[in-house]
């Protein structure tokens, strides 16, 4: 039953299983285990980014395509929901059709870009997506009558999902079960379902063909698979998943703006998370996201302490200043591409295999 739910793709490493279970349990009971707004925000961010990063891994790790337009699809989904909610007011109907519309638009965009640039060379795709995504980001910040420009959109979501709504009068384990907790569980369940769907996709015959295309496109073509079709489908699927993750973010934050969805920084974050966690396995996305977001939230405090301690040494203190945390992640990123391209998950699985499990 469990194996079936995981589509036969079990973690295949003891340590990895422990980590994954730990993350799953922490996320499932986050409102009760870690009370407080900041930790709930962090937990929701982790859920949403797991979907986003896993969908990117579908493209990068399984299909071997580098795209820089993933934040664009993320943004399309977020803006779809945000525009629908701000146009018609709070309600479940606009929430659903906005989400669906966002996903459809993302699919159309991905299809157009894919058909257009994947025929030539995979490397073309990286450059074309970079150009298109940056143009899209500028366009969104310019069309302020529609998108609110740089300020973004604030809107209302159904009342049941806001802190004002109380589900039960009393407290459960010392926590008031209000609409915010409900919203968190909406995000959590949706993320879990989307993740399992993606796990299903990559372990289907389609996923195996994708890997074949990634490893040797020429041979796959010779055997009779239409490489362009597989690559484009992977692009569209990953775009739709990214758009759905964007919609979740829009519902959770009750705000959508270029900085939270479209910026290049987020694209780089996604790239770092996938590579550090492990390309070509969706569990890598889970570990990468969790580590990265925890580091983003808590590593900076640690680096602040380090900077204090070394404040007498001029260059070193500048290097370990809290604002420079991306520098160290960049170094880690380059090192991991060289020395363990399969990321943390790949390493753990290798160890498990070596010890004869």
């Amino acid at each position: 039953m469990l194996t079936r739910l995981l589509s036969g793709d079990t973690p295949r490493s003891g340590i990895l299983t422990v980590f994954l279970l730990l993350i799953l349990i922490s996320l499932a009971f986050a409102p009760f285990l870690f009370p407080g707004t900041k930790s709930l925000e962090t937990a929701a961010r982790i859920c949403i980014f797991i979907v986003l990063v896993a969908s990117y891994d579908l493209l990068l790790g399984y299909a071997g395509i580098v795209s820089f337009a993933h934040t664009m699809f993320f943004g399309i989904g977020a803006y779809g929901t945000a525009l629908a909610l701000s146009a018609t007011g709070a309600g479940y109907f606009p929430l659903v059709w906005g989400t669906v519309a966002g996903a459809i638009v993302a699919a159309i965009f991905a299809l157009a870009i894919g058909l257009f640039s994947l025929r030539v060379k995979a490397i073309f795709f990286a450059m074309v997506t970079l150009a298109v995504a940056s143009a899209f980001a500028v366009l969104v910040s310019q069309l302020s009558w529609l998108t609110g420009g740089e300020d973004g959109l604030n809107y209302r979501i159904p009342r049941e999902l806001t802190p004002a709504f109380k589900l039960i009068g009393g407290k459960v384990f010392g926590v008031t079960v209000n609409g915010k907790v409900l919203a968190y569980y909406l995000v959590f369940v949706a993320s879990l379902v989307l993740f399992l769907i993606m796990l299903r996709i990559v372990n289907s015959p389609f996923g195996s063909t994708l890997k074949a295309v990634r490893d040797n496109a020429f041979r796959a073509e010779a055997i009779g698979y239409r490489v362009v079709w597989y690559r484009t489908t992977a692009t569209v699927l990953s775009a739709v998943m990214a758009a759905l993750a964007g919609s979740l973010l829009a519902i959770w934050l009750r705000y959508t703006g270029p900085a939270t969805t479209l910026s290049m920084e987020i694209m780089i974050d996604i790239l770092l998370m996938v590579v550090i966690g492990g390309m070509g396995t969706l569990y890598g996305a889970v570990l990468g996201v969790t580590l990265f977001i925890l580091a983003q939230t808590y590593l900076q405090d640690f680096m602040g302490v380090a900077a204090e301690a070394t404040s007498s040494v001029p260059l070193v203190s500048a290097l370990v200043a809290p604002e420079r945390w991306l520098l160290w992640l960049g170094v880690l990123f380059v090192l991991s591409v060289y020395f363990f391209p399969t990321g943390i998950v790949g390493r753990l699985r290798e160890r498990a295999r070596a010890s004869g499990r």
Partner: protein
Amino acid sequence: MSDTSIRPKMERETLRDLLIRKLPVLLVPLLAIAGLLAIGNPASWVTLTAAGLAMGMMIFIMASGLTVVFGLMDVINFGHGAFVTVGAFVGFTVLAWLGGWTAPPSVMMNLAAVLIAILAAMVVTGLLGYAFERVIVMPVYGQHLKQILVTMGGLIIAQQMIHVIWGPDEIHLSRPETLQGALVIGEAAIEKYRLLAVSIGLVLFLGMRHVLKHTRVGLLVRAGVENGEMVEALGYRIRRLFLLVFMTGSALAGLGGVMWGLYQETITAHMGSDIMVMVFIVVIIGGLGSVEGCFIGALLVGLLANYTAFLAPKVALISTIGLMVVILMWRPQGLYPVVKAK
């Protein structure tokens, strides 16, 4: 006897074939004429065309290195923008030191200061290119996916190091005295600095063409683009040649960075990655690996960006993307496809 000897039959190209073959070259004047028709006012057209050409030349300087590196070694450097940024910062630092040379209105002194700044920037970025090639690019030859990722990582590190060295704020610096202001010809005003940019770009393009077409190194580079393994088999160390090209490309990016910085008069740590978008569009339009295509692509992008910024500011942002789409529909490999299926 001589009457009956068999001569190779040389078919003359029809005018139509010639036009089709030369069409990419004709695109630039065609676009300029279209711009004139759309704008209507010749004075503003001259100003905009000069601005577009200057912008195109600067983009060409930055893009040329990237395209040759790709053509020769099938390496795409997503960290190319880092060289642009570093070049700009080094150039600005040197110009700030030479404040005494840039303030007085003497043409020679001003140009000398700019020249020194450019040289310093090119030396630093050239050396940086050496380090980048050895440390970051060399281990991942022939693996596109890793190249993109690793050079992207290099870009992140370089940007963060700029923050460490020069601080997080943007830097302002006004141009040297004699390069400020504009020349007025009739009713059209042309900024002096743009003239300088156009001349540097033109000299560079002609110089590059000369090196590539008429020197031994250029011959090797072209042969390497065509078939690298064969060049190696003939006993040339193509890796060393590639290192040279990579360093030159980085130095050119540094030069472009100084010029772009002086053009904007403001530099930030992420200017390189912003410009890279434009550079990629140009490289794609021109055809990966082609210097001529890159030149034409840069001019097209520069002109189109300036015309549309004047005619319809909102459309300007996506006009270059539109241009790229149109060109790729017409020629899926770019204007001058050089690199065959590698």
